[in-house]
């Protein structure tokens, strides 16, 4: 009987022996390089000589705004926080406009969308691809239950996602190091929370935290794509539908945001950063724990449907 670890090795072989996979990695590294380059270019363009003077001037402008106009509470708060943050920069002699390696790594978190996209393509191909190649028959006629084969496929898909995340992170680290110097690694990450208290935390931890929220989205989309892969017998259909759902989801939920039932859909819940400071969720009654519950329900449903589709159907093609 096959052991799960051997099945995962098989699936890994089928992922990493394909030229397509390495094109994806190249594409991702290219995207990180491009983004870092643009950030560097923007920085050099906006360089205005004396940053201390300009910060001081900004603060004066904002202070008068806060006192004079009759703005609402939220806006006043955020302005006051920005003044506090600027004061802190001035007192610590840190130029906030000067990019550090940490800024590059944190920005690369936005490329997790690309990592998700690439992993969704691989996930959608995982089961449907075997049907397209005709190899499903030889794959299933062996001493491994379908459940075990599917688990092996799912785990190696997740491992692939992790691999791309690490590539993305390391590429951003390298790009940041080259463009801003590696000494910035020890610089703290400065942030201010809603109640106006300034935090200094490790740059590395802040970056990983930023990655973390996006990884939940990644996990949900990849699991959905995996389910779609089990439903279709053609990999191009599976890839097309997975990408379609992923790309259309947000637009769809924005259009439907007037209806209260929209909160039970997957897409409005998938981005947990909507509950972070300064953001508002799609529906006012939505909370973080509600979204986590919804995501958990969807996750279990995806897995269950994928399992039923893969283990119960006859392979007659």
């Amino acid at each position, binding site marked *: *009987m*096959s052991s799960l670890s*051997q*099945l995962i*090795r*098989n699936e890994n*072989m*089928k992922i990493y*022996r*394909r*030229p397509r996979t390495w094109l994806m990695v190249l594409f991702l590294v290219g995207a990180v390089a491009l983004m870092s380059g643009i950030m560097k270019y923007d920085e050099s363009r906006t360089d205005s000589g004396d940053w201390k003077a300009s910060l001081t001037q900004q603060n004066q402008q904002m202070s008068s705004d806060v006192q004079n106009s009759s703005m609402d509470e939220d806006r006043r708060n955020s302005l006051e926080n920005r003044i506090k943050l600027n004061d802190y920069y001035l007192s610590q002699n840190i130029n906030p406009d000067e990019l550090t390696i940490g800024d590059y790594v944190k920005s690369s978190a936005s490329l997790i969308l690309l990592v998700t996209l690439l992993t969704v393509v691989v996930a959608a191909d995982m089961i449907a691809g075997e049907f397209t*190649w*005709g*190899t499903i*028959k*030889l794959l*299933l*006629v*062996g*001493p*491994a*239950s379908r459940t*075990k084969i599917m688990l092996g496929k799912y785990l190696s898909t997740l491992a692939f996602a992790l691999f791309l995340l690490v590539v993305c992170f390391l590429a951003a680290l390298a790009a940041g190091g080259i463009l801003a110097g590696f000494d910035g690694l020890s610089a703290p990450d400065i942030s201010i929370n809603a109640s106006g208290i300034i935090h200094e935390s490790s740059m590395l931890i802040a970056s990983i935290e930023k990655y973390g929220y996006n990884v939940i989205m990644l996990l949900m989309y990849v699991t959905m794509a995996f389910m779609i892969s089990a439903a279709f017998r053609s990999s191009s259909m599976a890839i097309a539908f997975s990408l379609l759902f992923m790309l259309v989801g947000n637009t769809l939920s924005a259009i439907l945001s007037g209806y209260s039932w929209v909160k039970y859909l997957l897409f409005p819940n998938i981005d947990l950063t909507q509950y972070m400071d300064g953001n508002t969720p799609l529906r006012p009654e939505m909370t973080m724990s509600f979204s986590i519950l919804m995501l958990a329900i969807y996750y279990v449903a995806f897995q269950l449907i994928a399992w039923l589709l893969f283990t*119960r159907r*006859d*392979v*007659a093609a």
Partner: protein
Amino acid sequence: MTEAVLELRSVTKRIGTCRIVDNLTFDVPAGEVFGFLGPNGAGKTTTIRMIVGLISMTKGEVRIKGVSVRDQFELAMTHVGAIVENPEMYKFLTGYQNLVHFARRHHGVTKQRIDEVVKLLGLQNRIHEKVKRYSLGMRQRLGVAQAILHRPSLLILDEPTNGLDPAGIRELRDYLRNLAREEGISVLVSSHLLSEIELMCDRVAIIQSGKLVDIRSMEEARTQTQSKILLEAGDIDAARQLLSQLFDPSQVAAAGSYLEIAADKSVIPNIARVLIAADIEVLGIHAVQKSLEEQFLEITGGEMVV
């Protein structure tokens, strides 16, 4: 009889109201090459897919070395090597990587064993090339290699010669016979080509419309071939009357300008003597062996697709 490696017990597949496979029961003992013959659409492939668990059974039981495929799929499959229709391989992998892929599923398939099988099938020169560059014959051989890596007790081949050239068919046939004889592997091979089955198999099951029509041993079929005698004579009616006295009247039938007598050739001298004595002109007498093909056509009611 030795212990059966493969046992089917009233295996049935129903889709809607249509019984695609109906109540199949047969055994394949160790070391036998068992043919599965039937016209296209008779349910051969469906049966084979039920044996290897690709398709669920509506009813019945399949046991491989006594292990139920339904209840202990993984254990049962350790004894099976299979090629279900054309062996599709991972084209972006090399032949060797494909074999490693299938070897990993079994315990105890060593590198040496892979090399041994590669050599056995004569693939060693191109085994490290990508499969997309293989010819169909080579893919077929790689498929066989994949199926025998783990030394199965039962080899299942579904239409293995589809798309092979005559040399490839012959090679595969010799190879299968060898496996059965020397390693005691049972082979279940399906085909719609009688000639193939005839050369490869010890016993044949004939199925039609999902039903088992007959199981016969090829040995028997060959020795018990019925022969008939064709007679051409000047006065066919007189000859017929005369011969109806000599034989059972049901044995004698007119076939165009010929008389057909169901008997073997030992009676030819007798027939000749009688006819000449009655002064009937004999234009020709010859014995005709009823071919296996005719026998099978008879069994399947003439619907054999050859």
